[in-house]
């Protein structure tokens, strides 16, 4: 590698000196990351085993797994279970998050592929398309949530107006307020906002497919659809897999869009939303910490499974 060739050029101690310098170069970053990531994570996990409240952070007592699952036998002999793991509100949030993540990432991948294929073609106005799709990506999530909640407004929203004019609906729908449509509303906004990111990642993969493959397929008279499924898709699969995992991780932790677009709706409340609500708003700090610990565990398991099953090379660095 680099250092060996260099090392031979100017003495054997060079490599050691460089490694020592590398240590000092990395130290500040590692210390910073320790204080903002590792330490808070460990403290969150610790809090989840205590009875801490917002006003009583420091004198919290260790209560073991009681925030997760707690059994108590009543005097009548009946056993009562309490804790997050038997909390229907928590399982509702888990279900909402999982449903949201899979549906949104599924559609984002399909639409992202379509947009990427369009942008990979040579045509007039290609840069216009790229500029246009960067706009949803650049708009802050909170702003897009507000823009869309105005468009989805039941009385004055433009979406209801369009659908009424097209005759697709017979009465105005309160998209964000009705439990049946609240999740759809969140999905629409999320798909709109993040498809560009997906498209750009897939496009980067597409641009690495050598053009002469298409040329050869065209000369052989192979149908473009067949070329797509047999040649293009297998070649861009690594890029797609990486894009999917990035998006999936983002979707599993979703907070801001749900919090602003459909406040206090049980139909959309996700794991992040319910954890924060318990932690800060309901003053059940430790209980919320237990829920966020569970979310962390779920995401960790998911990532390991995905990397293991899909053999995804996240670093893009093959050895």
């Amino acid at each position, binding site marked *: 590698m680099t250092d060996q060739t260099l090392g031979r050029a100017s003495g054997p101690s060079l490599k050691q000196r460089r490694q020592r310098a590398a240590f000092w170069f990395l130290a*500040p970053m590692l210390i910073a*990351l320790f204080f903002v990531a590792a330490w808070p994570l460990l*403290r969150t996990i610790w809090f989840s085993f205590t009875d801490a409240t917002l006003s009583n952070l420091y004198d919290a007592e260790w209560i073991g797994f009681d925030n997760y699952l707690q059994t108590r036998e009543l005097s009548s002999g009946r056993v009562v279970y309490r804790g997050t793991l038997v909390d229907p509100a928590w399982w509702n949030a888990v279900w909402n998050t999982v449903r949201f993540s899979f549906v949104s990432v599924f559609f984002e991948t399909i639409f992202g592929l379509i947009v990427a294929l*369009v942008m990979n073609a040579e045509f007039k106005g290609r840069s216009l398309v790229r500029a246009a799709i960067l706009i949803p990506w650049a708009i802050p999530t909170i702003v897009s949530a507000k823009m869309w909640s105005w468009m989805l407004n039941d009385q004055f929203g433009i979406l209801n107006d369009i659908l009424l004019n097209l005759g697709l609906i017979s009465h105005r729908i309160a998209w964000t307020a009705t439990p049946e449509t609240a999740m759809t509303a969140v999905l629409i906004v999320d798909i709109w906002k993040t498809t560009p990111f997906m498209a750009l990642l897939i496009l980067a993969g597409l641009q690495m497919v050598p053009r002469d493959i298409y040329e050869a397929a065209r000369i052989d008279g192979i149908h473009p659809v067949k070329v797509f499924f047999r040649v293009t898709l297998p070649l861009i699969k690594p890029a797609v897999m990486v894009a999917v995992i990035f998006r999936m991780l983002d979707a599993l932790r979703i907070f801001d869009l749900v919090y602003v677009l459909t406040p206090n709706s049980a139909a959309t409340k996700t794991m992040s939303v319910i954890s*924060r609500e318990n932690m800060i708003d309901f003053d059940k700090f430790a209980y919320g910490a237990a829920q966020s610990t569970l979310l962390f565990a779920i995401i960790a398991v998911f990532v390991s499974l995905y990397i293991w099953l899909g053999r995804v090379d996240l670093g893009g660095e093959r050895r």
Partner: protein
Amino acid sequence: MSHPLIKTIGFYALVAVIVVFAVFPFYYAIVTSFSSGTALFQVNYWPKSFNWVNYETVMGNRNFVRSIVNSVFIAGCTVAFALFLAVTAAYALSRVSFRGRGLLLMTILAVSMFPQIAVLAGLFELVRFLGIFNTPWAMILSYTIFTLPFTVWVLTTFMRDLPVEIEEAAIVDGATPWVIVTKVFLPLLWPALVTTGLLAFIGAWNEFLFALTFTSSESMRTVPVAIALLSGASQQEIPWGPIMAASVIVTVPLIVLVLIFQRKIVAGLTAGGVKG
């Protein structure tokens, strides 16, 4: 096969659908932000009036103006801090081979994809302990969790692609690694620093969860929190006009920056995942 003209028309129809879908919500926000009074409550597909009253309302709101100042300060400090630490770290990670480098890189990538809620309780305690609750420093500290890993990662991929010869001459001359980073690499890094900095700035500008949790007074809010909690004269009445005006104000600079740097941004965004 079908007629080539039909194919072309179909293709451009698809292009048009994509562009309209992408742009329309923002266009509609602009249209709404210029309507007031009863015009606000009619669905207008085209701008009917140009009324600056919503912008006057928003910019007359001292707390909103303050939140813009807060956001610029917080995002600026966060980015400066992250880049400062990331340049040397990225040099070590990309140009020096040592044991555990791959693992370290994976850890850094993992931190950047952390669910932020998982550190919220611990950070809350830390912020309280340091006495920086409800100050910009709480956000500058907490945003480091996503800006720092991201900048390190992108700068590492960028530096890895620079040729060996750049360093060789300096090493033969006996330059220390510190001199190599500051005198040889830094001048070459400016384009990458601008891109990475811009992306990190956008991330910090848009963050919501920490900003919502670590602020309590209206004058300390950042832009996303201010917009999310912007309320009207009464509880029932949502001030859609001013909200749209505020949205346009904080989004237009971002869009302008993104469009100016679009090639570099696309390269920076994709540097993380898809390489090879």
